[in-house]
């Protein structure tokens, strides 16, 4: 399958130069770079990302942030779709327990995604590839750290080969 993975995911091409494109190691436009999809809740984690930005903290451009209303808005199908279309890691970030803008969204998310993480593990995903973290709007530094850490972990693991939909891989 790794041969088929060469080239780039059709929908992950170039918002940040040099990222999420090259799945081949070695030749071409440089070494493989992981693509990480981060679903961030609007009220805490996305704001945490904003703070990281305004504080001029840098985090890897491998991370593509998708803003969602709440961590509980994320549907496991979104996670599967991200993997199908070339994500090497998926992160869900929400408010700390007790701080959800909708009171209980993240409590539900905690149960759901704990169970979903176990399920993905049973089905053979490396557990590092699917993560959940709580990041508040005042934790710009934590946001940057989490993104940095996830990127390093996924880099060490290499490209994801699970559930990739070959129809989405464009041969470059």
């Amino acid at each position: 399958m790794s041969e088929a993975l060469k080239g780039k995911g059709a929908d992950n091409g170039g918002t940040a130069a040099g990222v999420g494109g090259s799945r081949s190691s070695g030749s071409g436009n440089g070494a493989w770079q992981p693509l990480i999809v981060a679903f961030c809740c609007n009220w805490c984690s996305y704001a945490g990302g904003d703070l990281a930005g305004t504080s001029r903290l840098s985090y890897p451009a491998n991370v593509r942030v998708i803003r969602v209303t709440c961590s509980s808005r994320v549907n496991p199908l979104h996670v599967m779709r991200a993997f199908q279309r070339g994500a090497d890691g998926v992160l869900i970030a929400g408010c700390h327990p007790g701080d959800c803008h909708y009171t209980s969204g993240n409590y539900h998310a905690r149960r759901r995604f704990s169970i979903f993480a176990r399920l993905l593990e049973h089905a053979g995903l490396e557990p590092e590839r699917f993560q959940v973290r709580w990041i508040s709007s005042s934790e710009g530094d934590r946001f940057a750290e989490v993104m940095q850490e996830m990127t390093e972990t996924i880099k060490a693991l290499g490209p994801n080969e699970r559930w990739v939909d070959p129809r989405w891989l464009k041969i470059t």
Partner: protein
Amino acid sequence: MAQDNLNRDQATARIRAAVTQDLLSGRISLLLGWQKGLFWWRSRPLFARSQQDLERLVWDSFCAVNLSRYLPEELSIEERVGILVKGCDARAFHRLLQDRMLDRERVLLYGLPCPGMLDYRLLAEAGVKEAEQMLEEGEELVIQTGGGEERRPRTDFLLEKCRLCPHPDPVVYDQLLLPPGEPWMDPASRFQDLEARERPTPAERYAYWSGELQRCLSCYACRQVCPACSCRECFAEQQEPRWLGKGAGLNENMLFHIIRVYHGAGRCIECGECQRACPVGIPLLELSRRLAKDIEELYGPYEAGMDPEAPPPLLTYRPEDPAAFPEK
């Protein structure tokens, strides 16, 4: 597990007498039960509306099909439906009731304590090819093969779903037609076999499941029989957004099954109907059971379909819940 001293023919006669009376008196307009299928080792659903239909009724060791799944559709046309329920049919009934798919008042449940249903594949492996080669004597099976006569415990030949079943006696009924039995599986130890079958690395797990699921035909029989799959519109056929194509490529097969199992999390009654119905022999029950085990570990003991008032674990939470990811 003992069925008193009633043999299966006597038990069938007793069941037939009870339901015939209710059907003729108009207390029910339809009875859901079982009749013989094309093969001696298969009994299939019976939809009885007359005394004549009821003559085909059987209660034997092959009545594995869970009948409750038919109730929501039948209740849309029938006034009052009678149904024979084993342990798993009864839990499926609770499952559907909890999903508000049924009107309890319009269903009459005839409880049948279940001795566990037999798996033809296991019988065939032991040399049983014809009905005449097998005689059930209480908890033993007397098998006649070329090599002579052999006595084996009946439990050696149970369907996997039955071997693992902790509640063979129905947990809900209006009328119990046969004497209660003795369960053979303790709910607390029902996951023990999973540890023995642990696959230690992600690569092994992926290889195993992709090997199994690549056979999936996308026929969705596993979903159709599942009492936990009660959505009017399934994500598998949803048009907007469209999650699955019509192909049966490995990644889509795995997406379907991962989400199917996830949708059953905390709701799956571990009835194994998915696995029994699958035409290509995919061991589907294991994934659902692994998840049920995780749910118990993380959020406490819970058996779906036992108590319709107990909220399913994924529909509730406690602020002090643990997580399967670092929370600091």
